[in-house]
Each structure stands twice: as C-alpha cells, then as structure tokens.
C-alpha cells in the first residue's frame, strides 16, 4: 500500500450535530417505505464485501448480526444482505480476482489507489446516474456534493467515500518525557529548521539516541502536495489551493529541503540507519526508548491518543508543522462501489443509500447487537456488557471508518460523545485542493508510469530517510525520471486535470 491508509478519511460531513441528525432519521423510520418497492416478490439478496484492518469475526457471528440487519432491510427495501467481512490482506488477494472474473458481488469497499485499474478494466460500475436517481439521501450526508463525488475517474463516479477524517496534516510527535527533561518549549515549532534546532539540543545531551524514527512508507511528511493528480509517478500539484499546474513533485524545493535535513540527521547518526529497507514500524523504536520523535501526516485532534496507544502508551506531544489539507487521496481513500457483476445495480444502489443513512444498521455493523454485544449506558453512549471486553463479545468491529457512514453510529463510551463532531469540525478547517475529486487515469501513459515508478523505487526511500546525499542522488533521480518519460506523464495529467476543472 503506497499511501498511508490512515490518511484518510474523512468525510465530511454533516455540519449539524450528530444527535440532531439522528433524531431526524428516527422520525423518518416511522414513515412507510418507498411505494415503488414491490413487497410481493422474493427479497433481493445483496452481496456485500467489507474489508477490515484486522481479523474478522467468525462467519456465525456475522450471520447473527446480519439477521438483525435483514429485518430492517426487508421492511424498508424488501432486500436482504449477504455480508462478507475480509481482513485487508485476504481482501487484496481475493477481491480483484473475483472482480476480474465477473463475480456477483453487488457492493464492496473500493480503494482509490487501485480503483483506477479496476474502473478501466470494467470491474466497477459507473454509478453517476444511479446516484442521481436513488442516492440523493446518501449525497446529503456529505458536507458538500464535491466530497460525495470525490471518487471518480474520467467523469464517472465509481464510489461513495467513507465518512472519516478527510484531511492530513504535517505533524511531528515528540516524546514528552524528553521534552520535560530538558525543559523544551515546542509551542513555536513551525518549520523543519525549528525541528532541527530541537534535535541539536537534545542530541547533545542524549548521545546514542535517535532523534528521528524514520519510516519509508510515505512521502516526506512535512512536505505537502497533491499526489492524486499523477498517481504513484509523483506528478502532482504544489500549493494546490491556488495552483493547477502539474509538476514533478520530487523536483520541488520543499522535497529537496526535506531530503537535505534528513541527510544531515542521518549523517549525524540521528536516524535509525536501517530505515530505507526497514519493514518494522517506527512505533517500536519509540516504545523501546531508542528514538525521540517521528513525523506523521496524521494530525487530527484524536491522533495524539491514537499514536500514544500505538507506541505502547508512551506519552507524546503533537506539534503541527502545517495546515490540514484535503486532496482526493486523503478524502476518498476508501469508498463504497457497485461491481459490474451486480445482478441488479439499481437495487444495490438503493441498499447503499440505506446503509449510508440508517443509523440502526450502522450501529449493528459496527458494534453488533444491543444487549448481546453492547449495552447503552446512562449517557446514551455504548459500552461492553457487564464483564465483557473486545475479545469476549461475539461481534465488535469498532472500525467505523471503514464502514459506509460511521457518523450516524452512536459513539462508544471511551471515545466520548462528541468524537464524530470533533472529526467533522476538523474536516472543516482543511485547505481543499482545487483538484479534489480528480483521479488520474494512467492508462494512456501506462508504459511511462511503469518505467518512472521503477526509477523512483530505486532512489526514493533512500532519499526520504536521508541515507544518501540529495546533492548527488536527487539530480540523478530527476534525470532518470525524465528519461523514463516523466514529461509525458505530466503532460497527460495536465490535460486530464484541465478537462476536469473545465467540467466543474
């Protein structure tokens, strides 16, 4: 996976408060269902696949929950759900294969990074018209129609993004114990130079400690650019709130600066020297006390607690190095799509519309069955039944960010009542790319993309973690990228982007 999954999400969403929205829907529930539904025919079974970050509950537990879901869907739509929950690793192997052989999946989680190939091979349906006809309520759950339509290729909408944080933000996390020990004030830290100054200060007193636990997964995390415009080839937009001229992002001064600082730190022995080829996550180095800080593009208000948990409970201080920003790849990393093998796409769309708007179904899918898997506490929030926990209840996904619409779930007690509102508020602060909603179709330059990706693979990781001298390797990388056809990709990307902007 190229981009960090967590870069997510968000969606946006409803500006009204969560509970207000819920009440509205509760009222609607009493209304009778759509009159054009023929309840005399056999219920249509919708095959749905959701991917999960980790192990899924056993099939019998899923069936138990889905039975409750089906009571609702039968009443409202005369349909039933046949749900499959697949761990991400299994999903990535099985689903493309199933789609490529024309399976009868109706609704599935789609990943934007792969969707381009899936759309051009005809796996996913163009749902533009279906959405107009049956998906208006679903569209209304997004804070803007642009967000609802963020997952599209060549003007065809292929999915509805999940509701989640839509913004990323250049962020650095420091270990609080070290900051306290040397009485360091981080409130004025805004730039790489500020970070460098702190490193100088700490490194002197803590010889042997790595100032930075680096990873090679993502793009330099203090550098902000819109990559959705050129896919993995790194053609994209700098300063995307104002600028729409596509350039080679790795040729930018910002990227060079990132590489230079990292190289300096690397040379000083301030970075874990195995980072370029490491498959270990940097959290382990924080947890083991070997490292002092790490960069992240995951800087929303809930992030600090998440990261502390990831680092085995180490106390962290979060410092932002830039504004939150939203691009296609941050806003629509996951979406819900309809497969071209669906036997009845219209019905699938109606089901998806219901999933996006029915809080009872979302609660069932996320938290299980009331009384069995969770109870409602006195604050109206949810908690485990007496004496149970995550591993002893039968069904507990707790992964709302991968479901169609977590914002209509009732919050879990430990997350707090306003968790979803916090996310929504954060989303509203994001600087939005002019190219939001644009996804590059690399098909016309597939050969060049293959060649450029290959060149980039050679040097990119080593540059990002500072293992090599940017003065020597960066020009080499840029030259080889151009030889491999980078300018053709940029031209194609610019052409498509201009068409997209014109159509808006």
């Amino acid at each position, binding site marked *: 996976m*190229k981009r960090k999954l967590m870069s997510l999400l968000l969606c946006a969403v409803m500006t009204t408060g969560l509970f207000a929205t819920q009440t509205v829907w509760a009222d609607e529930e009493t209304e009778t269902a759509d009159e054009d539904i023929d309840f005399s025919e056999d219920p249509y079974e919708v095959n749905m696949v959701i991917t999960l970050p980790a192990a899924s509950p056993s099939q019998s537990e899923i069936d138990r929950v889905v039975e409750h879901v089906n009571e609702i869907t039968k009443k409202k739509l005369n349909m039933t759900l046949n749900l499959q929950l697949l761990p991400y690793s299994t999903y990535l192997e099985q689903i493309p294969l199933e789609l490529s052989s024309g399976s009868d999946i109706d609704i599935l989680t789609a990943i934007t990074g792969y969707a381009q*190939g899936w759309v051009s*091979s005809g796996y996913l349906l163009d749902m533009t018209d279906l959405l107009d006809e049956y998906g208006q309520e679903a569209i209304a759950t997004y804070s803007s129609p642009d967000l609802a339509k963020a997952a599209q290729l060549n003007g065809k909408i292929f999915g509805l993004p999940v509701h989640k944080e839509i913004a990323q933000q250049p962020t650095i996390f420091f270990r609080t114990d070290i900051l306290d020990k040397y009485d360091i004030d981080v409130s004025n830290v805004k730039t790489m130079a500020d970070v460098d100054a702190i490193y100088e200060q700490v490194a002197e007193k803590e010889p042997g400690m790595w100032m930075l636990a680096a990873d090679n997964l993502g793009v330099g995390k203090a550098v902000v650019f819109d990559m959705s415009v050129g896919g993995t080839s790194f053609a994209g937009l700098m300063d995307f709130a104002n600028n729409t001229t596509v350039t080679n992002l790795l040729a930018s001064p910002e990227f060079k600066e990132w590489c230079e600082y990292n190289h300096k730190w690397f040379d000083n022995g301030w970075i874990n020297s195995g980072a370029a080829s490491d498959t270990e996550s940097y959290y382990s180095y924080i947890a083991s006390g070997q490292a002092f800080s790490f960069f992240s593009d995951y800087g929303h208000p809930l992030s600090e607690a998440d990261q502390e948990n990831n680092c085995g409970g180490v106390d962290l201080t979060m410092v932002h190095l830039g504004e939150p920003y939203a691009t296609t790849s941050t806003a629509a990393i996951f979406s819900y799509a309809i497969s071209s093998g669906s036997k009845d796409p219209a019905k699938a769309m109606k089901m998806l519309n219901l999933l996006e708007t029915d809080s009872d179904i979302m609660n069932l899918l996320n938290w299980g069955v009331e009384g069995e898997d969770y109870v409602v506490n006195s604050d109206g929030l949810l908690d485990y039944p007496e004496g149970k926990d995550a591993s002893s209840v039968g069904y507990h996904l707790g992964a709302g960010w991968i479901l169609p619409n977590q914002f209509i779930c009732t919050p879990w007690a430990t997350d707090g009542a306003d968790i979803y509102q916090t996310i929504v508020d954060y989303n509203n602060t994001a600087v939005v790319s002019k190219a939001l909603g644009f996804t590059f179709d690399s098909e016309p330059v597939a*050969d060049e993309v293959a060649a450029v990706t*290959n060149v980039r693979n*050679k040097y990119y990781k*080593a540059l990002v973690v500072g293992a090599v001298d940017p003065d020597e390797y960066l020009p080499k990388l840029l030259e080889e990228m151009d030889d491999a056809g980078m300018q053709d990709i940029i031209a194609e990307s610019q052409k498509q982007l201009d068409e997209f902007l014109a159509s808006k």
Partner: protein
Amino acid sequence: MSNKVKEKKTLAERIKPYKRYLPLYLMMLPALLYLFINNYLPMSGLVLAFEKYNVQDGIWGSKFVGLKNFKFLLKSNELPILFRNTLGYNLCFIIINIIFGVALAILITEIGNLAFRKFAQSSILFPFVVSIVIVSYMVRAFLDPEAGMLNHLLVSIGHQKISWYDTEKFWPFILIFVNTWKSVGYGCILYISTILGIDSSLYESASLDGATKFQKIRYITLPFLKPTIITVALLSIGRIFNSDFGLFFQVPQNSGLISDVTQTIDTFVYKALITQSNIGMSAAASFFQSVMGLIMILIFNTITRKFSEENALF
C-alpha cells in the same frame, strides 16, 4: 461397398497392435484429465496478453491491442539489467545446486552410521519447510543495520557497521548463498534416492577389482545420476526467464539502492504494475517469459538429443 469393408478391416487391424497399450493409456488418464482442467482450460488466458481486458466483455470479447501490452518491458531502460540478472542468477543457481546437491548426496550415502545419515538426510531438506518470507526475516536478523547479528559482531571486533541493504556488492553472494541454503536439499534428496537405487553389487565387484573410491564415484555413481541431473537441468533451463519472486523481492526487502543487482523480470513487473492492476500487461510479461523458456528448452533439448539421445525430454 467391398471397398468400405476392406477399409474397416484395415482400421481394425491397425488398431489391434495398439490395443495392448489401452490399459497404459487408461493409467495416464487421471493425470491428463487433471492437466486438462488445471492447466489447459485456463490457457485461454494467454490471449489476455494481446488484449485490453475488460471484464464486461470477457476474455474473448475484449479489445485486441496487438503487441501493445509488451511495450512496457521494452520501454524501460532496465531491460539489459533485467536480462543479465534473471539469466545470470538462474544459471548460477542451476550449476551450484547441481554440484552441491550431487556432492552432498554422495557424502550422505557414504556415511556408515545410520542415525547420522538419517539426521543429515532430514536436515538437508529442512530449509525447504520455511517460506521465503520467513527466510527474509532470518536474513534480516543477520543483516539488520542496527540490530543485526553481523553488525554487532563487526562492532565488537572494532570494525565499522556495514549498511548491508544499501550496498550492491554483497548481494550477488547473499542471494546465491540464500538460494543454495534453501533449495539445495531438493535436488540432493532426488540424487540420494537415485544413488540408493543403484545395485550395490556393482560397487562390491568394483572394490574387488581394486577400484578407488573416486573411481567408483566416477564410473558407477555419476553415470547413474546422469539422467536425473540432465532432466533437472533441462527443466530448470525451461524456467530460466522466471525467477523466485520471494527471493528477489522479500529477501532484499525491496531496497532501492541495490535494485541493479537484485531486480529480475518478475520483480520489475510486480513493482511496475502493482498500482495499475493491468491484467493485459502482466499476462504479456509472463507470455514473454514462457516463450523464451520454450525456446531455451528446445535448444538445449536438441543439444541433449545429439549427445545422449535417451536423456532428451522429448
């Protein structure tokens, strides 16, 4: 009419000698049936190499694009390196695995102590039980720049740490070593079973004639091993354009700076297409590898037929 009867007769007559082979054909049936289902039915997928696949049009209905899918292989400036690495490593692997495999097989069968022999025999196959991903963890345990055993060793003798995963010159040796470690047992155990199938009276009479150990190996063991060795070599040559993906991708941890000496056709295709999900292009790459493999095997089979007809594959 009389003509027809006559013809029928000759047909029956012609079939008759084959009749005794019928049971033999029947015996072959399960395997052939399996090949038909598992391999020959899916061969229709070969046409994907020449199409822009669209699931809604199906395998036979998708748009024909000629050789377009093959272009990405040629367009990359990497092709000479890919060829050099894929062929070079495979050639080394074939030669080393045969030499080591045969040598170890002979040594093992020479051991008189039954318990030790059994133990040696089992252990040699042992690395085969681990998947290549796990092998890559093991390699990392030795080579990790920070926590790796080798660097700790180097530091303790006062040497500088080496950043193994960024240094090209070590990798040809590492890859060859890892491959030998992992797969020498496979051939070895084949050779052992062939050696143990040799009539022991041959060795006894050779000893009576005063033959030395090396003479017995040279004139009895090796000739008996020859057909197996040739078969293994020919079959490996057929796959010389394919590479063990795990060995070249997982073991070097996909490290970029060493990719000039670790990149093979398979890893290139994987990395180039991972985000494109382009079935046509990956089909084209494997079609190319197959055709090259077929050419190689035809050439080497012809050579084999010239020198030892009975050992040719077909």
